[in-house]
């Protein structure tokens, strides 16, 4: 999948002292979800649940169409994080799949600093993360904890 975001180099940790609650992470915008993207994610992730790639199966389950893996959006939220800090700084990531993400939707990943604190001597921030479609409808919500070394 190619998206409009420039090629990312590994992030350096931002200056913790300068961060404030409410600060926004640079958002991550994805192109419209294609069925091909779901097929690639099916293979790459090892999640072979047919409901994401086989429309016949999806209909037999009462769905009008296939829909995106929640964990594909989760991977995009993880990219939002690793674009902002080195991965080793991420202490936790907790995702809630609030609504289905559909083929054709353009997903935007956003994050804000919710809280800044020191925990066991380590400078930390708690982030609120979310995905929404191009109409602003919420899809995933998440929380992450980032700690400085």
């Amino acid at each position, binding site marked *: *999948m*190619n*998206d409009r*975001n*420039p*090629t*990312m*180099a*590994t992030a350096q940790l931002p200056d913790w002292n300068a961060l404030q609650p409410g600060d926004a992470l640079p958002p991550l915008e*994805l192109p419209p979800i294609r069925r091909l*993207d779901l097929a*690639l*994610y099916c*293979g*790459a*992730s*090892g*999640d072979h*649940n*047919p*409901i994401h790639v086989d429309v016949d199966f999806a209909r*037999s*389950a*009462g769905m009008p169409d296939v829909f995106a893996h*929640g*964990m*594909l959006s*989760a*991977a*995009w939220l*993880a*990219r939002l*994080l*690793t*674009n902002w800090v*080195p*991965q*080793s700084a*991420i*202490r*936790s*990531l*907790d*995702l*809630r*799949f609030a609504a289905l993400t559909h083929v054709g939707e353009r997903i935007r990943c956003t994050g804000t600093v919710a809280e800044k604190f020191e925990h066991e001597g380590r400078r930390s921030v708690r982030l609120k993360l979310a995905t929404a479609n191009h109409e602003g409808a919420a899809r995933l919500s998440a929380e992450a904890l980032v700690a400085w070394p």
Partner: protein
Amino acid sequence: MIDRRHIGHQLPPFQVEVEKGRLRFFAKATGQTDPVYTDEAAARDAGHPGLPVPPTFLFCLEMEAPNPAAIRELLGMDYRSLLHGEQGFSYHAMAYAGDMLTFRQRIEDIYDKKNGALEFVVRKTHVHNQRDELVAELRCVTVVRNQ
């Protein structure tokens, strides 16, 4: 209704080797363009011993269990009625291509809402590397929609 006696059930541990080809395929499938996740030289330049396992890929490795349907079969759940409700990761150490990871899964809780119309199965997984270091804890909440 799912039998609550399965709360506390531990599944047989299993091992999964982290393959760098899968990591590159995952990077492609998720639009990851940071070369650290696909180029070993870039990974080493960034201080990593090899290609890192990205944050959510541990969930994918967990699906490499000898029988990925083991919990579904044990609890008698149909694919068609399942939704992934929540997924949590607590990270303790980075994992890399070539690591041999051990997954230990346990059914942490089973509960229902809306008079049984929705049931929830909480699975907790501990992941250790080949040096027996704790890599991560995973928490998965599966939602069962009962008709």
